[in-house]
C-alpha cells in the first residue's frame, strides 16, 4: 500500500504514461511506420498524400506510355513494309533500260503485289483496332482500289507523245488525290490518336492512310499497274515511267520521314518512361522519409523506455514496502 492517494495516482499515471509510450514505440518498430493515422504524421500529411497521389499518377502515365509504345511499335513495322515495297518497285522501274521493251507482265505483277503489300500494311489491326484509320480505329482504313485504278487506266490510255503522256500522268495522279476517299475509309478529320503522358500535355501520334506520302506512292503504282507499253511511242512510256519513279521516290522519302518522326516519338516516350521511373524511385524514398520511422532512433528509445518502466516498477515495489504499517 502506498501512503497517500496522490502518490499512488501519480505513480499509476507515470507507469501508464510509460506503458503507452512503450506500446506506441513497439507498434512503430513492428509496422516501421511513424503512425497509422494522418494526424500522427504531424505537418507532413500533405506531403504524404501529395507524393502518394503523384506516385500513382506517374504509374498511370507509365501505363499510358506502355500502351502508346505498343501502338507506336505496331505502326513501325507496316511503315517499313511500305518503304520496302516502294523501294522495290522503284528499283524495278529504274532497272528498265531506255529503248528496250520492258517486261510489262512482270512489272505489273510486281506493282500489283506492292499495292497489295501496302494495302495490307495499312490495314494492320491490333486487338480490333486499325492503326492507320486515325481516331476511327474500328474502321478498316484501305478499301478496294479497283475503282480508282480503272479510272487511272482510262486516263493514261492512248498517250500520243511524251508531253501528252506526262500530262496524262499528272491528270491520273490528281484524280487519285481528288478521289482518295474511294479507297481510304478511315477518319479524315483533324483529331489524332493521342494519350496523356504529362500534366496538361498530350502525346499525339498516328499516321493515317490518307497521308500524302501514301497517296503519291499509290498513285504512281496505280499508273504503272495500268499503263500499257506502246512500242511506237517509247518516249511517251518513258515520260510516264520517269514520272512514276519520281512519284515513288517522293513517296518513299515521305514514308521515311514518317518513320524518322516515329523514331523520335518512340524516343520521347522512352525518355519520359525513364524520367518517370527515376521520379518514382525518388518519391518512394521521400515517402519513406515522411512516413517511416528511424529504426535506429526507435531502438534506442525502446531500450530507454524499457529501462524507465523497469525502474518505475522497482520504485513501486520499494514504495509499497516503505509503509509504516509494515514496521508497527
Amino acid at each position: 500500500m502506498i501512503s497517500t492517494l496522490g502518490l499512488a495516482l501519480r505513480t499509476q499515471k507515470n507507469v501508464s504514461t510509460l506503458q503507452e509510450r512503450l506500446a506506441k514505440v513497439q507498434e512503430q518498430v513492428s509496422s516501421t511506420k511513424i503512425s497509422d493515422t494522418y494526424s500522427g504524421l504531424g505537418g507532413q500529411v500533405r506531403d504524404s498524400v501529395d507524393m502518394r497521389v503523384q506516385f500513382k499518377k506517374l504509374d498511370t502515365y507509365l501505363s499510358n506510355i506502355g500502351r502508346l509504345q505498343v501502338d507506336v511499335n505496331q505502326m513501325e513495322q507496316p511503315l517499313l513494309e511500305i518503304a520496302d515495297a516502294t523501294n522495290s518497285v522503284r528499283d524495278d522501274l529504274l532497272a528498265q533500260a531506255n529503248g528496250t521493251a520492258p517486261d510489262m507482265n512482270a512489272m505489273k505483277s510486281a506493282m500489283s503485289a506492292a499495292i497489295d503489300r501496302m494495302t495490307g500494311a495499312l490495314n494492320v489491326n491490333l486487338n480490333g483496332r486499325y492503326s492507320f484509320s486515325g481516331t476511327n480505329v474500328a474502321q478498316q482504313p484501305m478499301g478496294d482500289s479497283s475503282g480508282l485504278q480503272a479510272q487511272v487506266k482510262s486516263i493514261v490510255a492512248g498517250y500520243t507523245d511524251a508531253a501528252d503522256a506526262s500530262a496524262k500522268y499528272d491528270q491520273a495522279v490528281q484524280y487519285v488525290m481528288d478521289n482518295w476517299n474511294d479507297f481510304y475509309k478511315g477518319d479524315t478529320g483533324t483529331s489524332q490518336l493521342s494519350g496523356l503522358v504529362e500534366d496538361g500535355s498530350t502525346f499525339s501520334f498516328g499516321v493515317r492512310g490518307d497521308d500524302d506520302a501514301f497517296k503519291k506512292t499509290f498513285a504512281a503504282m496505280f499508273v504503272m499497274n495500268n499503263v500499257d507499253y506502246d512500242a511506237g511511242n517509247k518516249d511517251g512510256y518513258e515520260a510516264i515511267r520517269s514520272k512514276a519513279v519520281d512519284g515513288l521516290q517522293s513517296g518513299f522519302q515521305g514514308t521515311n520521314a514518317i518513320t524518322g518522326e516515329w523514331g523520335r516519338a518512340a524516343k520521347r516516350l522512352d525518355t519520359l518512361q525513364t524520367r518517370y521511373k527515376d521520379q518514382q524511385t525518388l518519391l518512394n524514398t521521400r515517402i519513406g522519409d515522411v512516413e517511416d520511422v528511424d529504426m535506429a532512433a526507435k531502438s534506442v528509445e525502446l531500450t530507454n523506455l524499457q529501462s524507465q518502466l523497469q525502474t518505475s516498477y522497482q520504485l513501486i515495489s520499494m514504495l509499497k514496502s516503505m509503509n509504516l504499517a509494515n514496521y508497527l
Partner: protein
Amino acid sequence: MSLTSALLTASAALRNTQSNIDLTSRNIANASTEGYTRKVAQNVTQVVDGRAAAPLLSVPTRSVDEGVLRQMRTESSASGAATIKNDFLSRLEDLYGTPDAETALAHRVGSLQDAMTSLTSAPDSSESQAAVLDAATDVANTLNGTSSQILSLRREADQDIRDTVDGINTQLKQFQNIDAQISTRSALGQSTADLEDQRDTIMNNLSKVMDISYFRKDNGAIVLSTGTGRTLVDSTVFPLSYAGASIGADSSYPGTIPGITIGGVDITKDLRSGSLKGLVDLRDTILPQAQAQLDELAGTMISSFDAAGLSLFTDPQNATFAMPGDTVGVARRIGVSSTVQSEPWRLRDGSAATAQNANTADTTKLTAVIGAVFNTAQTFRTSGMGGGGTVTSGIEGSGTLAHYAESILTYQSSQTATVAQEKSFRETTFSTLQERNLNDSGVNVDTELTNLVQLQNAYSASAKVVSTLNQLFDDLLNMV
C-alpha cells in the same frame, strides 16, 4: 481538586481518544477514496475556575485549499472539452483511413483523375471506361459514407448534449440536497466535513461537464452558477433545459436547433468549457465545418464536370444542381450519373453528344474535360456555408479538386492533432493540480498510523489514570 474530578477528566480524555481513533480509522479506511479529505478533530482545553479541565473535542473539520480546488475545476472543465473533442475527432479521422491504405478522399479523387488519364490512351476500351466509372463511384461512395458518418456523429453529439443536460440536472438536485443538509448542520454546530466532501465531489463532476463558478455563504451553503454567472443553485435548483432536435445536414444553431436554456434564457453561447461545451462545439461548429468542406468539394465536382461538358456526377435531389443553393448535404447525395453509366462512351464524347462519335479513339473532349476539371484551379467558398450560412471552411478558396481534397485531410488531421495535444496538456495540468490537492487535503496513511500510536499511548495513559484512581478509591474506602 478531587479524585472525582480527576476521574472525570481521565474519562473525558478516554472518550476524546476513542473519538480520535474512530476518526483516524475512518481516514485510513478512506485513504484511497477519491473525493475524501482528511478529517481532524482538535482537543480544546476547557478552563474551569481558572484551571484546565477535561478537554473538549472539536467537531471534525477538513483542510482544503480552495484556490487549488478552483484551479483544478477550471482545468477539469478545459480537459472535459478537449477530451470529448478528441474522442469525436479521432473517430472522424478513422473515416479517412490510414496513410498507406490510400482510401482517403484525396486518393479517391486522384484515382478518378488517373482512370480518366488512362482512358485517354484507350478511349474506346470498355474496360477503361468501366474503370473510370468505378473510380467515380468510389469518389461518390466515399463522399456519401464520410458525410453520413459526420451526420451520425453530429446526432450522437446532440444526444450526448441531452444526456449531459439530464446528468447536470440530476447532479444539481443532489447538490441542493447536500447543500441544505450542510446549512442545517452548520446552524446546529455539527460537523459538515463529510457532507462538504460529497458536495465537492458533485462540483468536481459538474466542472468536468461545464464551467461553473460559486461562492460560499455565511451559513456554509454555496451559490452555484455557470461560468458567466447564471445561477444554477441558490437554495433552489434552476435546471438546464434542452429539448433536442432532429439533426439533418442543414440543421444549425442558432436556427433549427434549439438552445440550452435556464429559466427560458439561452445559455448555449455562454458555455466556455466542459464536455457540454465540447459537444456543442462539435455539433455546431467542428462537424458542420467538416460537412461543409465535403459538400463544397462534392458540389464543385458536380458543377465543374457539368461546365466541362460531361455530367459525370449528379445530385439525385436536384436535377438542375446549382451552387451554392443546392450545396448543403450534397456530399451525402452525390452519385454517378445513370446516363453516363448506361452510355459510358459519354466519358469520351461528353454529355451533349447526340450519338456516339464514330471516331472512337478521339480524345479531344476527354482531354478537355480532364484539363478543365482536374488541372484548372476551381473556386471554393470559404464562408457563408452550412445550413445556417455561418460556417467557414478553414481552407483556402482556390485550387484544384485534388488540392482541395488534400486540404480537407490536412485540415482535419491537423485539427485532430491540435485537440489531442490540448487534451494531453490539460490532463497533465489537471493531474498536477489534483495531486497537489490530494497532498494538501488527502489522507497520508503513515501520518495516520503515527497519530494512532500517539492515540494509543494517550489512551493507555488515561486508562492508567483511571486504574490508579480506582486503586486510590479502593484504598480510601478500605481506610474508612
